[in-house]
């Protein structure tokens, strides 16, 4: 080994390790945000969608929203905030989709009922043959 060999990066190993640690900690702080807002929105959306009408006409969609909200709560418990945020955001939109689906189904039912009421069956309208 040459006595005057130059060190390529004259930084003490301890300082380098401290810098790496600081970067990791900062990176962690930058990405992990507790999703309290999305959780609150999801809770409110699922609660709002949980009506007898939605349970009857959009049972599958409402169950999907409830299951995802439960998954988001579990992820929060495990401090898996990325998963919790995604599940909460999906639960919110699923609950809104359940409401829309129920409303759409009900509107169609009522429209059909109105048409039936206005146009009785052909038997009633049929004229007696001479």
């Amino acid at each position, binding site marked *: 080994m040459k006595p005057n060999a130059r060190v390529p990066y004259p930084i003490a190993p301890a300082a380098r390790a401290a810098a790496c640690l600081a970067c990791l900690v900062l990176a962690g702080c930058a990405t992990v945000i507790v999703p309290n807002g999305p959780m609150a929105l999801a809770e409110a959306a699922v609660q709002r969608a949980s*009506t*007898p*009408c939605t349970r009857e006409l959009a049972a599958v969609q409402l169950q999907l929203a409830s299951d995802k909200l439960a998954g988001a709560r579990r992820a929060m418990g495990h401090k898996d905030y990325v998963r919790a945020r*995604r599940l909460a*955001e*999906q639960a919110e*939109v*699923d609950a*809104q*989709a359940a409401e*829309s*689906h*129920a*409303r*759409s189904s*009900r*509107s*169609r039912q*009522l*429209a059909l*009922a*109105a*048409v039936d*009421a*206005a146009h009785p069956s052909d038997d009633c309208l049929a004229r007696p043959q001479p």
Partner: protein
Amino acid sequence: MTARSLALAAVLALSACASMPGRHPALDDAQGRYDLARSDPQVGTLARAELDRAGLALQAARQALADGQAAAQVEHLAYLANQRITIARDEAGSRAAQAMVAPRRQAGTTTPGNSSLSR
């Protein structure tokens, strides 16, 4: 020399692939459904706000893909966009049906159980 040229060409080709925005099945599906909904006059007229929201959700998913975000995140945003498109379609259908019923109701025709439609 030839080997070095080949290696350089391979590196360039690979880097080009890496920088190109990739395709994503769920995002492509959402884009197709959004285009269909947008070309439907009923959706455009009766559920404009919901369609706009779906468009913003789709844009966010596309941006995530272009930014090279994690596949799970792109999948998640594409899912949100797809659901927003479904909501726009359902709301348009709902409002169209309500518009059919409304004149009859005003004319005095009674229809049972419509309290569940109020938002």
